[in-house]
């Protein structure tokens, strides 16, 4: 197969007829943008004045010394405006929405990062904005909800299904088919129906383009390996893309190992035996589903990796053997996070910490003149509620209890 919108066996646009026309327009606009160097320049200008691109590549000299192997470099997507790589995608789509003349955007969000980024973009571009978020995630991520609302977005808790990311995606599609004329659905990752995987990947590829220049300048040659966590796959594709045709660079995607691949409580699609080919949420990929094709519940300490599907582009690169996939367990993630904070003064998001885990396992096996890059997709300080909880910090608990006491008194 080499059909439009397919990457090897994966991808496509499995969409309800009502969206057909809007996808036609989106495809046309996307083609126009891709062929318009001014558009890319406009995107770069926006990202370098509104966010702080290029984001730095930090040499983690302490960690490198600690592991005694490869030189570890960290690509700092955490320094983006709104704190994660998600900004790259939404700002790019924002420019496209402006060109298409639509006035309203919707988005799904799991951890809240993509919702935050979309609400931010909508404020900046003056769009109406509705964010769909699983009720469970609203409960867990109230700070993000607060900010989204403050930025003028409406956040709708989704009470269907497992009340998490995939259900928020379904809810967003339901909104879209209802309000298709004036609304653009800002898909958050390199999944979903064509052209989203390619489009999101295109905007995110800015990460790897920068990293490529930076590593040559700072290290003097190509990195041996690049690590990225894989939820939907957008930060991974973002950092990998520029290096796909550099055969000496090994690319490693790290999935959520949750409580362990043997337990079933994980979100590893490509490196576990638990996924199979399927079609849902508008595209074909490897899904964590049962024999009937019903999607399974997944688990990860990182809400942003807790998803049943995976990028069709990555599924193809996996099948081709171009990207290797590994898993990091919740436990490993907490200790990688701890080590990174202590050694480098850097707080990776729980999602990003997955990439750190695998890099830490492999760094000692490489020589000191080799470099590896870890894509730090976001910052962890927003995850305070999750991280402090996961570390079981007693003062944190006291603090929350005391705060609650005040609120119970006065309300």
């Amino acid at each position, binding site marked *: 197969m080499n059909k439009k919108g397919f990457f090897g066996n994966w991808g496509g646009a*499995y969409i*309800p007829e*009502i969206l057909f*026309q809007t996808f036609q327009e989106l495809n046309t606009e996307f083609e126009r943008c891709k062929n318009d160097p001014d558009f890319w320049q406009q995107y770069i200008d926006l990202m370098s004045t509104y966010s702080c691109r290029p984001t730095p590549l930090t040499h983690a000299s302490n960690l490198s010394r600690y592991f005694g192997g490869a030189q570890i470099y960290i690509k700092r997507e955490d320094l983006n405006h709104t704190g994660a790589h998600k900004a790259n995608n939404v700002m790019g789509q924002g420019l496209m929405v402006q060109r298409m003349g639509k006035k309203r955007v919707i988005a799904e969000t799991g951890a809240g990062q993509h919702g935050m980024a979309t609400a931010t973009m909508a404020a900046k571009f003056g769009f109406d904005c509705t964010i769909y978020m699983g009720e469970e995630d609203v409960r867990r991520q109230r700070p993000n909800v607060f900010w989204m609302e403050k930025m003028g977005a409406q956040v709708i808790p989704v009470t269907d299904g497992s009340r998490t990311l995939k259900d928020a995606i379904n809810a967003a599609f339901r909104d879209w088919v209802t309000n298709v004329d004036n609304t653009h659905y800002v898909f958050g990752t390199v999944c979903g129906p064509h052209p989203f995987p390619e489009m999101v990947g295109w905007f995110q590829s800015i990460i790897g383009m920068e990293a490529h220049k930076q590593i040559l300048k700072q290290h003097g040659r190509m990195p041996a390996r690049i690590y990225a966590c894989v939820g939907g796959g957008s930060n991974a594709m973002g950092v990998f893309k520029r290096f796909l045709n550099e055969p000496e660079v090994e690319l490693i995607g790290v999935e959520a190992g949750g409580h362990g691949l043997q337990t079933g409580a994980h979100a590893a699609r490509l490196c576990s035996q638990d996924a199979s080919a*399927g079609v*849902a*949420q508008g595209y074909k990929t490897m899904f964590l589903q049962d*024999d009937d*094709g*019903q999607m399974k519940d997944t688990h990860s300490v990182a809400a942003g990796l807790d998803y049943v599907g995976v990028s069709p582009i990555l599924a193809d690169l996996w099948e081709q053997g171009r990207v290797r996939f590994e898993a990091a367990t919740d436990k490993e993630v907490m200790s990688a996070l701890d080590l990174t904070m202590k050694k480098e003064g850097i707080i990776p998001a729980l999602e990003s910490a997955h990439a750190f885990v695998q890099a830490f396992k492999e760094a000692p096996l490489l020589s000191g003149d080799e470099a590896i890059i870890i894509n730090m997709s976001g910052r962890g300080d927003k995850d305070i509620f999750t991280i402090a909880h996961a570390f079981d910090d007693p003062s944190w608990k006291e603090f929350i209890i005391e705060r609650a006491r005040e609120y119970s008194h006065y309300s």
Partner: protein
Amino acid sequence: MQLEQQLRERLKQKEILLMTHIVLGYPSFEANREVIAQMVAAGVDCIEMQIPFSEPMADGPVILKANQQAITAGTRVSNCLAFGAEMAATHDIPFLYMTYYNIIFKYGEQAFMEEARQAGIKGLIVPDLPPEEGADYLRLAKENEIAPILIYAPTSTDKRMSELAGHGAGFIYCVARRGVTGTKSEFGEEFNTYLARCRAATTLPLAVGFGIQDREDVTALKGKADMAVIGSRTIKLVEEHGPAAVGPFISSLR
């Protein structure tokens, strides 16, 4: 006899046909059985049986919940296929499966089609499978004499409608409005123009679905469409008043 012919036969006696929708395994196969018996007795012309899927992207809250509860209750695809065969053998009206593509894909398209044919199923509605992605599906359906029912939407251009007409069979499912199943539609001027466009684009019979609630809605479609589709409305009815309420409701529609 193939689906289109069956419907055309029925259209000789009736001004407009009725198609109803049930979600298999919701609230139970027992209830499904009783509801279908009532529907058939009340003169329904065609029934679409939805095989539940965990991600029913195009469905509204009522059908969505029904899908989820059916799965939670343990409904398996194999149960649905067995039940479909039983119904087709029991009642003398055409039965269709409605489901999302993953259910068929995962079962194996070939195996699914063969079983469906053996069961006497006449057509398939798969709302997330446009013909661009469904070449194998369309071929296998036709090989197995099962009508792959395609969908028109108000957003479909004339060109798109003609293109779809070439791939579909049985009838065209015209989605009455933007949105998902379950909320009321308006059948005003704009709708009439849309339906005229549909009629011009295909020689297949036209079914109209999404939000048809009562006799008034069905009446509004007479002379414009060939079949009215009652979806969420009967599911709600069963939830609120039990299967026995379905017969009188259906009878009241025409």
